[in-house]
């Protein structure tokens, strides 16, 4: 083959390829099928988790295809790109033809076509065609925007139509798809999504990005003044609430509570309640029970503070705190750990689960130590995002709904009422057509015929 003709034909062939609905069907089905993969294989986990699950060999193959972050992989984005080009090319190609149809001044009606319809309605009226004309035209005008009256050989004919413009509905939907993709692109290029934990009373000015783990500076500070949880009687959580203060150069400019579903928006940045946790407590009230005498002794201590015990029992220090503690396969929940050093003996580890005050009795020491109370201190977990594409995406949403409605539920309807003289009477034919919902149009024609024959 000649090289030149090949290159000259290439753009044309490419255009033809992208203008085909066959390509649309293939790309849509490919997107549907490949999307399944990411719902079965959990996305964006740590590599170790995948290695564990799939082994070295399959891990390498899967990660070569970005399966572990497949919705952001080059090939998935490539499918979306093909879809966009396909939508744009199809729309351009068909829109120019549609433009001529939509903005025609004098719509063409072919009466013989209407006469050929099998579901036309016919009846006879005793009034003259002229009388009927006066009655019919207003009735038809009531529900059809455009109408035209034409003389025929032995009578006349009313043509009417409406909804010619609804043909653009599908292009409105296509436009909305492009808007969604553009909005998504803007968001991924200029936006970010990250998280930050703030202990009560502390202030932060940067967050950690979800995708890279890098720090992202904010142009302001966020302080968490308070965090609280409310519970239902059943014990299920009913509300997570953080009181946040925004500070600019050390000065507080705004204080507001946020709860799930009610974020704080400041300077294009959105701050969401998404998580919380308990911090190691500062003050702990311990109960020391002498297992021989049965005497109890309560004492308030701080984390890490060494105290001397009465009755020459030695010294005790609370060394640490964990939100969960694994004991022989059982989770003990919130647990304090301490070290008891008797006056003459080696140090002993003491485990003090909050939920099980009698736990330390199992150690069978002279003292049984348990946690009586402690101050609960929380940190709030915030999701922080910036997405300048949201407005574009939302306008895409609105346009898509409007476009779908026009495309599916509004149609281009054409009506023809022919009245011809037949002896003393008039013969009337009502026929119509619609580009969508043909069943609905049939019953509409019946209704119109019924109205006219009254």
């Amino acid at each position: 083959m000649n090289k030149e003709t090949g290159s000259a034909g290439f753009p044309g062939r490419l255009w033809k390829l992208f203008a085909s609905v066959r390509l649309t069907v293939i790309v849509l089905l490919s997107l549907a099928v490949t999307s399944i993969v990411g719902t079965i294989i959990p996305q964006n986990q740590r590599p170790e988790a995948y290695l564990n699950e799939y082994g070295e060999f399959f891990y390498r193959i899967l990660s070569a295809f970005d399966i572990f972050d497949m919705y952001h992989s080059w090939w998935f984005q490539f499918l979306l790109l093909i879809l966009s080009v396909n939508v744009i090319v199809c729309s351009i190609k068909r829109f120019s033809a549609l433009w001529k149809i939509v903005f025609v001044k004098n719509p063409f009606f072919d009466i013989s076509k209407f006469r050929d319809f099998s579901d036309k309605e016919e009846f006879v009226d005793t009034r003259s065609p002229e009388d009927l004309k006066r009655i019919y035209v207003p009735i038809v005008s009531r529900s059809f925007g455009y109408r035209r009256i034409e003389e025929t050989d032995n009578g006349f004919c009313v043509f009417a139509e409406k909804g010619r413009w609804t043909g653009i509905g599908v292009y409105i939907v296509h436009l909305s798809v492009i808007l969604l993709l553009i909005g998504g692109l803007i968001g991924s290029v200029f936006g970010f999504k990250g998280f930050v934990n703030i202990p009560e009373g502390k202030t932060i000015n940067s967050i950690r990005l979800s995708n890279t783990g890098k720090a992202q500076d904010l142009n302001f500070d966020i302080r968490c003044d308070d965090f609280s949880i409310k519970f239902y009687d059943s014990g299920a959580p009913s509300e997570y609430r953080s009181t946040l203060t925004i500070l600019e150069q050390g000065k507080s400019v705004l204080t507001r509570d946020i709860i799930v579903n009610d974020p704080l928006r400041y300077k294009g940045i959105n701050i969401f309640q998404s998580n919380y946790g308990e911090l190691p407590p500062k003050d702990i009230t311990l109960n020391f029970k002498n297992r021989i005498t049965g005497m109890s002794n309560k004492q308030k201590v701080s984390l890490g503070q060494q105290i001397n015990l009465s009755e020459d029992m030695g010294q005790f220090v609370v060394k640490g705190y964990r939100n969960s503690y694994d004991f022989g396969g059982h989770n003990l929940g919130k647990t304090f750990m301490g070290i008891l050093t008797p006056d003459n003996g080696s140090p002993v580890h003491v485990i003090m689960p909050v939920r099980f005050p009698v736990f330390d009795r199992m150690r069978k020491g002279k003292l049984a130590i348990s946690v009586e109370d402690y101050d609960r201190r929380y940190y709030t977990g915030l999701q922080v995002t910036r997405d300048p594409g949201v407005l574009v995406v939302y306008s895409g949403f609105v346009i898509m709904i409007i476009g779908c409605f026009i495309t599916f539920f509004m149609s281009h309807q054409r009506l023809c009422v022919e009245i011809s003289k037949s002896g003393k009477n008039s013969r009337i034919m009502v026929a119509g057509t619609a580009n969508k919902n043909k069943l609905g149009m049939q019953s509409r024609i019946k209704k119109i015929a019924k109205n006219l024959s009254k």
Partner: protein
Amino acid sequence: MNSSNLLSIVTFTYALAAFLYIVSWVFKKQLPGRIATWIAIIAVIGNTGGIALRWIESYRLGIGHAPLSNMYESLVFFAWTIGVIYLVIERTYQNRIIGVLATPLAFMAIAYASLSPNISDRIQPLIPALKSNWLIAHVVTCFIGYAAFAIAFGISLIYLLKRKKTGDKDGFFNHLPDFSTLDELTHQMVTLGFLFLTIGIITGAVWANSAWGSYWSWDPKETWSLITWFVYATLLHARMMRGWEGKKLAYLSIIGFMAVMFTYFGVNFLPGLHSYGQG
């Protein structure tokens, strides 16, 4: 009477309606069909009452919220939307054949809610993530979409059965609506479903953006709803632009409904954010 009892009765009412629709079809008798319509209307009214009663009960418990917050409630609402849409179609097209498949679907949805041991009918308080005005808009639009697809699925099954059996003159299939009517009806239900699925996904995205900070996270339920959307978008393009009809479209409509069912039930077996839909 509490809402659970009422809805148990509704379950059996749907079963009776389904039985009568089938009897009317098999024996080609009009009378059972006419009774079936009335029974179906009673079932839908009872279903409405059950939902309303449950709503009132939740307020009496001091945790008032629309009864659309868990699997049980969504199944009850699913049955309701199928019932309502079917009755509208029956009235519009004056044909009871679709009832042969639609009422059993409504029955199965509500029976699964009442009888499955994994689904609790207790009224539970809303977890913080569900406390939003978007809850009602999102769930209602999604389920109107699902119900329309369910009916499209039923019509497609009828279509395929009729295709298979044409020829034997005495079959049950001769007084079914003709192929073009079935085809057109499937298409109408798919377009209705597609519009509402679109609105359902969009309200979900807007809600997600106000609750989690991003309108799209590729969580399995989101992804499966998009897969469903892709399948029906394919169907619409294949029909409008490539002139597909009949069998091919019926198969696509069935595949689409499988995707709907997986979005609804199957996703609960996958990890993700929509976990409150499970029990």
